[in-house]
């Protein structure tokens, strides 16, 4: 069983967590162009690398940030939003 560390509840089995994708800045829908908006809605960075992702510990509903190498599937760091970047 793979273990992930929740910043609040400590190490837990990865099956207690769900993944919500890479953190991406949203353009202002009132000022951006249609192409910029479509790019935000659909396009993703599908290439491997170290990415910052949203994850949630579902049993405690804790949302936090995971830095993960998506090719090796190795978690490098987990922390709450707003904590040390």
């Amino acid at each position, binding site marked *: *069983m*793979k273990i992930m560390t929740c910043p609040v509840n400590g190490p837990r089995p*990865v*099956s207690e967590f*769900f*993944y919500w*994708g*890479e953190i991406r800045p949203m353009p202002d829908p009132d000022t951006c162009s249609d*192409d910029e908006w*479509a*790019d935000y809605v*659909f*396009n*993703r*960075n*599908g*290439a*491997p690398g170290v*990415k910052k*992702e949203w994850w949630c510990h579902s049993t405690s509903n804790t949302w936090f940030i995971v830095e993960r190498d*998506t*090719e*090796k*599937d190795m978690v490098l760091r987990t922390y709450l939003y707003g904590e040390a970047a």
Partner: protein
Amino acid sequence: MPWRLLRFGLSKKHPEPRMFSDHPQLKSSYDVVIIGGGGHGLAAAYYLARDHGITNVAVLEKGYIGGGNTGRNTSIIRSNYLTPEGVKFYDESVHLWQDLSEEFDLNLFYANRGHFTLAHTDSAMRTMRWRAEVNKHYGIDSEVVGPDFVKRAAPMIDLSCGGHAPILGALFHAPGSVARHDAVAWGYGRGADMRGAEIHQQTEVLGIDVQGGKVRGVQTSRGYIATNKVLCAVAGFTPRILKMVGIPSPIYIHPLQAMVSEPLKPWLDPILVSGSLHVYISQSARGELVMGASLDPYEVQSTRSTLDFVEGLSSHLLDMFPFLSNVKVMRQWAGMADMTPDFAPIMGKTPVEGFYLDGGWGTWGFKATPVCGKTMAHTVATDTPHSLITGFSLDRFRNFSLTGEKGAASVGH
């Protein structure tokens, strides 16, 4: 019927030649370079030579032929999709499949088994009726059947699925089939090779030379090749290649895992799929049960497999077939599925002139191998998208005009 086996058996020598010729050197230029020596890439090389007379073609494969998703899928072939674009496209593919063994003179073990998509809820029954009507409208053999029909086709099934997910009915697709997947790559590869295309294994693409918005060449691990046309058919590696040419895309990669059991006497003729239980299962010609489930729940760009998968799939499988409790799992593996937001592929031309894409094949690419080769060969040769693939263009994600195939593409979404 292929007579090659009989000839081989009666011969005093063993006259089996190599499947492909060896090319120690890359040429300095080709008319078309195909990245990816899986079924799709080799089929495109085959149809480029056979239908369009373009034979100065190199197929570049980083590993070995058919070692990617072509050899990692669960080899199911069907056309009972949901959208008109999908149904017409996959139907053409099924027709091509039926003649392939004869055409290659190579036994693909194409076995017509019949395909059931089980419904355990009212909403699933509604989707099955919807799919059946779309399918019938386009002349596909597809109908909704009751639990008794399922029981007759698969007598060992527990119709109550352990009591918590009773089978209410199923979508039955009589043309559903399985085939020997690696043989497909070998058949297309040999056919392309015989017609003059070159297959280069152990040749990795490191970069693509784009000047003024046009493809000029490809940098490989064995040197530079000049070319004006590149076809990208690399499944789970698609985002890495698109990064080289600077084309943004909605493709994201999740592993899809599968496993097989030890061989058993034949007891399961049809192919069974359950979206609610996240299971699909068929019995191969060797007697092994070939089983798969839904995608892994998060992005990973590698082919690692997990124990969680085996545990989850086994538990759901035992709901359907309790008598399998003593059967052993022999091996498991994973492929990288290049997923799209609407569960339809991305095919055709791209913003870079001379760069053609055959990607976004997620969990549904094997069955489309012949028709992808044929339509992409047409697209590359004439620089015009084939009429069967216009619904799959990359532009649809700029125009908000998606081809929603989620209800029919795979299980558990």
